[in-house]
Each structure stands twice: as C-alpha cells, then as structure tokens.
C-alpha cells in the first residue's frame, strides 16, 4: 500500500512526503512515496540496500531535489524553504562524524551556533549528560570516541536545538547491543517529548521495539505501511521476508 494517508487532526504532521518520486536517469530510486509522521511518532522504514530509504531522508534534508512530488517539514515545503525547514531537523547519519580535534562540548557548541542557538558550557554539558554521554568524555577530543558516543553527541544536538524532527539513517548498525539499547532508550525519550522521528533501518527487531509505525520499502515503493501495534514480530518478520522475496525459515 503505497498511498496510505494518516489523518489525525489533533496532531501536527511534522514530516510529510506527498507522491515523492526521485529518478536518476532511467533508475527510479523512490516511486510515488507518501506518508506523514506526527509529533511523538516514530516511523521505521525497513528495506534492503537500494530500497530508497536514504533517498527519502536525503529528500527531506534537501540534499537532493525530488523529480516530482512534495516533501514537507512542519508544513513547510523543503525545496522552497531549505534553511527554515532545517531549523526543525536534527539528522544522524549511519556514521555520525564530528571534528576529531574538537572536544564533545566544542563540537556541540559549534553545531548549535550554526543553528543560531547559543549556550554556555554548563548548559552544553547538561545536554550531553541528558543524551547519556559520560561526564569525563565531555572535554575529551572526539577522535577517540566510539560510534555510540558520537551518536550521543548527535542526540545532544537534537536536545539543544529543541528539534521537532529527527532523521536517522541506519543509526544502530555497527553498535554493540548495550549502546544500541541506550540509543533506543534515547529515541523513546525523544518521542515522548513530542519529536517526530523517521528512522531508516535494516533492524527489524529494534524497529518493532521502538517505532509507532513501520513502513517496508522495496524498489523505491512503500510496500507495507502499518501501525507497529497492529503487527506481532512474527507477522512483521513474515511480511518483511515475503516482500523482500526471501524464504522464511522457521
């Protein structure tokens, strides 16, 4: 089901794609994709490599221009208002990289200032602590940070920016189970604060655990869209493997 429209009047649509299509020559990376994510919702986009998950996120960040269709953040057209829409967004890529010779506090200070927000050192440290980064790491240069630690700085940025939208591209790949759990807890916290989250992932189990909605993409199309509570893990696994044309092994 490609054109599912969620309409909940009491919640604002924070992330919207309307018939989004992105073509590279003859290749269609995203095909007629439509969905809405409201405040306090997490949509997990599942799909194999090349399914169009990252292209969707890149369109929402205006890194690429849609061939047709619309993408909106907080009701604003991303193509028309690229800078305004980015004030609502925090983006955490698969491998969040920061300036290695700056400390965690300095990195956070730099990126928050780019978003025209200024905090003192105590406030910045408080954001890092809220994001789960140990205090002794705050003034250390990030070149020695693990991926999990760097992602915590990313979450601290979202907290500091008071972001309404969180875009995550494979955030847990390569994380150890502990860090992955911590990260999921942080996402739940952000969701509860009313942040709209779009997460592209391969991780079916984490998606089931943390999301409010699940979308399964294949060949640029949204093949299945459902509330997470409507599906058991078993059903989700079956549907996913079915869509991906994999044999289900009991």
């Amino acid at each position: 089901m490609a054109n599912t429209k969620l309409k909940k009047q009491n919640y604002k649509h924070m992330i919207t794609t309307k018939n989004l299509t992105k073509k590279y020559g003859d290749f269609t990376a995203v095909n007629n994709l439509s969905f809405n994510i409201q405040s306090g919702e997490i949509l997990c986009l599942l799909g194999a490599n090349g399914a169009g998950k990252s292209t969707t996120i890149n369109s929402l960040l205006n890194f690429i221009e849609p061939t047709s269709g619309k993408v909106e953040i907080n009701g604003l057209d991303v193509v028309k208002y690229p800078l305004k829409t980015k004030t609502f967004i925090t983006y955490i890529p698969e491998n969040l990289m920061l300036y290695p010779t700056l400390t965690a506090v300095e990195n956070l200070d730099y990126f928050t200032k780019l978003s025209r927000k200024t905090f003192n050192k105590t406030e910045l440290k408080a954001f890092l602590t809220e994001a789960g980064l140990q205090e002794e790491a705050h003034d250390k240069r990030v070149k020695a940070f693990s991926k999990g630690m760097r992602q915590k700085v990313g979450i601290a940025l979202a907290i500091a920016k008071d972001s309404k939208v969180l875009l995550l591209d494979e955030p847990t790949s390569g994380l150890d189970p502990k860090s992955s759990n911590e990260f999921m807890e942080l996402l739940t916290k952000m969701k509860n604060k009313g942040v709209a989250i779009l997460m592209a992932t391969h991780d079916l189990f984490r998606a089931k655990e943390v999301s409010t909605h699940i979308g399964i993409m294949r060949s640029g199309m949204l093949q299945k869209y459902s509330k997470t509570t409507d599906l058991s893990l078993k059903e989700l696994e079956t549907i996913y493997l079915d869509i991906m044309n994999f044999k289900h092994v009991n």
Partner: protein
Amino acid sequence: MFLNNLSYEIKLLKRSHWLLILLISTLVLFAFATFNGEKNVEKRRNDISIMQNELHKNDSIVHSALTKIENGEQLDIPYSQLPTEPMVIGYRHPRLAVMQPEALSFISTGQSDMYTHFKSPTVYGNNFALDYSEMVNPVQLLFGNFDLAFVIIYILPLMIIAFTFNVLSKEKELGTLRLLGAQPIAITRWLLQKMAIRYILFTLITLIVLLLAIGIFSAKAFSEPINVIGLILIIAAYIFFWFVLAFVINIKINNSAKNALALIGLWLLIVLVLPATINQIGNSIYPTPSRLKMINEIRLIKKENEEKQNEIMSEYLRIHPELAQENDDLKLGFWHNYFASEKVMEEKTKPLLAEYDQQLQKQQDLISRFKFVSPAIMMQQALNKLAGTSEQHYNDYKKQVFEFSTTWRNYLVPMLFKNEKITKAKFNKLPKFEYQNRISSDVWINFLGIFLMCPIILLVVTRKQLKDKSAQTLSL
C-alpha cells in the same frame, strides 16, 4: 555565523598545527628571499662604489696634474695623456653614468642581472649605446633568482593551494559535510566564510612576516612608504586571486585529490605556461633583431665614411660654422675627422638603432597587452616596477646614458675645434650624470587587474552554487 566560524577555524587550524607550519615556512622563505635580494643589491652597490672610487682616484690625479700645469710646472706626460686636452678628458677620463638601486630593489631581481648599472660614455665609439648586457651564469638564468618576487609569484600560490585545496572536500571525506548540510546554513556561504577567514589569516601572517623580514634585512625600504603600501596591496590582491581559484575548485570538484591536481594544473598554466607562451608569441611575431648584424652594418657605414673623409669634413664645417670661424689656422687631426664623420654616422645609424629599439619595444608592448591573461605576469611587472628593475627602467637608463653622452660630447667637442684647453675650473664643471627614475612605480592598474579578476571568476563560474541555499549543487 562568521564569528563562530572564525573562532572555530582558528582553533582547528591551531590544533592541526597549520598556523605554526605556515608561520615557520613564510618566515624561512621571506627571510631568506629578503636576505638574498638584499645581498644582490649590496653587490650592485659595491660594484658601483668600486667604480666611483676609481673615478675619484683618477680625478684627483687629473686635478693635481692640472694644478701643476697651471703653476707652470713641466709634466712628463705624453701628449695623448695630457689632461689639458679636451679629447684626453673626453676619452680617458669619462664620467660615470650610474643607475643606483631603488629602496625596494631587493624585492625583484628583474632585469638587473642582465644589464649593467654603470657606464662611462666616452667621446669615442658607441659601445655605451649598444652593449648593456652583463655576463650572467646561464644556470642562474635558467632557475632564476631566489628573491621575494620568486617567493611571492611562484611559492605563495603553492602554499595557498596546500592551505585550501581540501577545505570542503575534507569535510566530505571526514563525514562532517552531511551534518553541516543538515544545519540551517547555506553551505556555499559557510565555505565562503571559511575561505575568507583563511584568506585573512594567510594574508596577515604573510604580510606581517614580510614586513618583519624587510625591517630586519632592508629597513631602508620604509623610506618609500607609498611603494611599500603598493607592495602590500598587490600581494594581498595576488593571494586573493589564488583563494578565489581554490574556492571555485572546492565547489566545482569537491574531491581532495582532484582538487589538488586541478589547482596544480592551474598553477602551472598561470605561473609558467601562459607567461612563457606570451613571451614566445612576442618573439615569434616580433623576433629580437640581431645585434651582430647591426654592428656589422654600422662598421660598413664607418668604412664608407672613411673613404669620403674630406667631403664629410667640409660638410661638417659648413653645418657648424661656429666651429671653424675663429680658427682659420685650425689643423684638422684625427679627432676633428672623427667627430665630423661621427655626425654622419649618427644620421645613418639612427634608423638602424631605431629599428632595433622599435622591435624590442613592440615585443614588450605585446607582452604588456597580454598581461591581463595571467596574474603572475601582472605581479612580476608590478614587482619589477616597484623594485626599479623592469625592462622599462633599463631602457630608460640606456636612454639617459645616451642623452648624457651627447651632453658630454657637446661640452668637449667645441673646445676641440676652438682649440681650448681644459683648466681646473673647467674640469670641476664637467657635466655629471644623475640617474632619474622616470618610470612610474604606480601599480594600481596591475592591482585592479588582479583584484577585478576575482569577482568575475566567482560570478561566472560559481554563480549557480552561490545562489544555492540548499546543498544540492554539491555532492554530499
């Protein structure tokens, strides 16, 4: 955003030791180049000073000989060396025509290693008009001199390339560019600010170190503050040009290896290929005339004159009745015949010399017209102008020596024909050569030429990217 970028850019550059590396390398390069340039100028001053001392020594001998003659003493000197004879003074005791170095001569060797800085035009012969070249070590000519002009024109751009080639691509390769792209900033504007900060830092360090090196090794330069300001402005413009190129390449290519390659290619084109090509075109269209051929032609004219000596002398005295009037019993000797035929020679060789000079002038005009093709050419011209070592300066010096030789002859020849003797008083009043730097050291056109290229390049090449508030025109 600018202040945030400024403080973090300085922090990042400090932590990567870039500022220290830049400071040390500029310090070493500028100190050595200034020292080297000043040494060359010092050598030139010493050579001039040796010649001047020799002249003073010679003059005091002549002076004492004249005193003795005026006191009625008999001197055991052959007639051909008798200082009372105008031609002896004119031929054996010529004045020194010196081109002293300018206060900023140390910045650019220019043509100073090709041409002489002192000439002694005598009443006989015309070598002073023909031969100005110095014996130069060809290996030195091939590699050039390690002076400030070399450092500024050739090495500074390489340092700028090393300092800027990966400003954007490094962010991409490090992985921070996507995070930056997700912030509410226009990446091109952010990059522009980052480059502007680096430009300010680079220019400040370069100019402070340069002024420091000048202060230590050649403080005299500050006696010409206008020229020092001109030097500072033109260097700032040249650095700006290279930063603009680096900005364009960063935006257009955005891959460290390719950026470096493209910038090195542009460096080769602008600094080496274009100047050499324009020079070559100048040589092909207006080939340098053969000096040997000209000298041969002059010899032929001379020979022809010798055969018609009597006719020439009659004609000369007819044109210059003032030289014959009071001397009915004038005995015409070698010098009289020489000057008579020299006048004819002058008339006949004038077109030859003019043709030679015109051809060289056309060559230089062509190069001058094409100078806007390469900021390196404009820079070299400007630095040579400030240093007083340009081709124009040496041509003008040659012209001034030529003019002085005429003055020298005009002072002595009438004495020869009127059979007058040199006295101490007349010796003291001999014409003296004083070099005037008549070439303007104005570098405004070159400054504007280099400076105005920058917005043109920016607008023509990166107009689309500069308008882009998203990051779509850059591959993140």
